[in-house]
């Protein structure tokens, strides 16, 4: 399992992560980030890409 943490103090809801792994990250109707705390191992590369493209560098992947 891939473990995902987003530092919500840093997150500015730019939603760049959503384009890399849309099954894991999404913006809700009010524009706030929602995400799954776990993803299947097969999703690791995309989840890591999502962490890479976060402008605020708020995403940690374990």
């Amino acid at each position: 399992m891939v473990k995902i943490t987003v530092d919500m103090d840093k997150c500015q809801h730019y939603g760049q992560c959503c384009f890399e792994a849309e099954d894991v990250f999404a913006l809700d109707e009010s524009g706030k980030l929602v995400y799954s705390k776990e993803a299947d191992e097969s999703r690791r590369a995309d989840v890591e890409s999502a962490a890479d493209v976060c402008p605020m560098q708020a995403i940690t992947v374990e």
Partner: protein
Amino acid sequence: MQRVVIVGAGLGGLRAAESLRSAGYSDAITIVGDEAYLPYNRPPLSKEALAGGVDIESLEFRRKASVDDVEWLLGSPVVGCDLAARTVTLDGGASLDFDGLVVASGIRPRRLPIPGPAGGRFALRTAADALAVREYLIPGAAIIIMGAGFIGCEVAATAIKLGCSVHVVALDEEPMVRPLGQELGAAMRRRHEARGVRFHLGHTIVAFTGDEHVRSASLSDGTELKADIVIEAVGSVANTEWLNGNNLNLSDGLLTDSCMQVETPLAPMVAVGDLARHPNALFGSVPRRIEHWNIPTETARRAGPTLASLLAGEEPDRSPFIAMPAFWSDQYETKLQSFGMPGIADRTEVTSGSVDGACIIEYFDATGLVGVIGVDRTAELAPYRKALLARS
């Protein structure tokens, strides 16, 4: 055992190393950087880090485990390169051999030769710059910002929040007019003016007065402005001087092909980030340099496999390069988010909301939609981004 040397320890340099590793390159990598720090995030330097205090450690990028064995030579400017001999020369005279070279040395702020004292004139690119500027941003300080691009406007917003008095002097007719267009540029000016920023548009600074430290600035219209410091954000120059003498196209940054390879018979070589002038199949065949934060990562994703193939004696994948330029900007409570290249548009349309509030603006040229900007409407941009991707 082969060795890749990466020149520039910024975002592009780091991502290039990671991309080489994920492309299967497992030999040596040396990253040489002139700054004293491991790669860190620059955008906060004009925004929250400048407002709150510049803590470099908290800005450092997380590095993937795959680059744990990379050798870092920090505080070490590269001053020359002999592609035929496959060496780079460090300040101090030492040289480093390489089998493959990654150019990731980025850009630096352009400085204008203006008569008067040099003290108190700053530019903002590095953490060291931000630390120096931060000291002066105290309540009541008189700040002059030269240039009304993103960095100038973000610094203006930050300085206002910190209680400074802020004047922006720029030749453009509106702030950020090239990337945003007239209508949104004017709306952003009104937002800044409502917070107290004073603009002197269509003008420039012709001289500074003061002994060693700037005390005031004279504008081209005769206005005299008091200044405790001046922050100059008037464009950039690519850091490519160290590559001179190798018969490369250094006319505006470093020219690459669609797989980020630099055309030279002398050595396997790629370029990434702000200085790479590369084609992008989404926007025709004209190679462009794009100074957006997402580009170092996108170009490195392509450059890593290219260099790994070249070093393995294989032909790299030369299919078209497709990367969606994306930028964001934070000014006061306003968040701008852009996709595509609004700067090349000749027509805009506000499709939702009004430019003085939250809105979405579409940008067109003869080929159709070329860009979209959301003002406080980030969550609604996905369909536009998809339409832009469909251009390829």
